């Protein structure tokens, strides 16, 4: 078989596949929010698991160095982890299921989820600032008392903060873009 005939035969077979139902070629907000729900559940599970690991690690670390400094450090980690986990659960409350099975309700739910993510982002920025303040105070004290080399801490801390800030900003852009797209969908879907 010549090359072109071969490609033509494949093309005929390939294009014989047609959708059995034209409705499957339309945007289905119900399916989108269900997929978002699965992602949300997985994300929350990941966050809680990470929190549990942080709690266990800090408890173990402080128990092997039972000084005031490390007990205080573990207490700060525990407080931060409980706050973050509690906020994550609370922030998602009411956004797991749509109020009804209509496209408008699905879009509204999707919009609610974006708004909640943006709220989490605002809190995330504050949380990052508080962490930064604690770490800066801690390192300054450490430096004053023990004269530890500041440079490696400075670079590691700076890089971590820059990465976290960049991630938060990227996330905010993504959520705002989703909100705009959802706003445009309103008129189209219903």
């Amino acid at each position, binding site marked *: 078989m010549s090359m072109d005939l071969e490609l033509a035969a494949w093309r005929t077979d*390939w294009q014989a596949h*047609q959708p059995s139902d034209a409705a499957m070629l339309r945007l289905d907000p119900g*399916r989108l929010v269900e997929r978002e729900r699965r992602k949300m559940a997985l994300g929350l599970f990941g966050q809680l698991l990470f929190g549990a690991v942080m709690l266990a690690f800090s408890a173990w670390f402080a128990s092997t160095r039972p000084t005031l400094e490390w007990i205080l450090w573990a207490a700060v980690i525990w407080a931060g982890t409980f706050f973050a986990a509690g906020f994550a659960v609370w922030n998602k409350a009411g956004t797991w299921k749509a109020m009804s099975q209509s496209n408008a309700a699905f879009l509204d739910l999707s919009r609610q989820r974006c708004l909640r993510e943006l709220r989490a982002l605002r809190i995330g920025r504050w949380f990052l600032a508080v962490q930064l303040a604690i770490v800066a105070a801690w390192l300054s004290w450490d430096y004053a008392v023990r004269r530890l080399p500041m440079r490696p801490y400075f670079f590691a801390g700076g890089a971590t903060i820059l990465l976290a800030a960049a991630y938060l900003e990227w996330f905010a852009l993504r959520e705002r873009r989703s909100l705009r797209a959802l706003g445009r969908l309103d008129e189209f879907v219903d």
Partner: protein
Amino acid sequence: MSSVDRRALAAQYERIFEAHGPALLRLTASYEAPPQAREDLLQEILLAIWRALPSFRGDCSEKTFAFRVAHNRCLTHVWRRGKSPQSEAELPEVPDPRKSPETLAIDSRRRETLLAAIRALPVNYRQVITLALEDMTPAEIAAVLGVTENNVAVRLNRARKALRSILEERP
């Protein structure tokens, strides 16, 4: 965005899906075999096109635009999934009532084999062959994938060779 703009956007979106919806569904079938996963990927593509539509300035055809967004979405999908597609379920076909049941079964088997063989190709070959099977010219394929026409010709040649070899192994 004004209500008129939104309606124009919705009309453009409808036009794209009427013209290229079936082709986009076939594209998802080259990445996912189970119907549920395929439909999820199609929904991701539909939403991605909807999101990208306001930034479409008409610097290429709507077909090129739709396939460019769809291929980018499929690449993200492959990257997230991180494993080869399964190959149990197949795409629906519209049977030709003039053919006998035996001929229909043979045709169907051949198409399933082709689909499975396309799924077995590496992603860069799969991209180029699926676009060629949708009657796209090398220039259009190059515009979708963001590569040169020479590169498309080389890739298509290799993809055909690889596809032929897989099909010969699966009679």
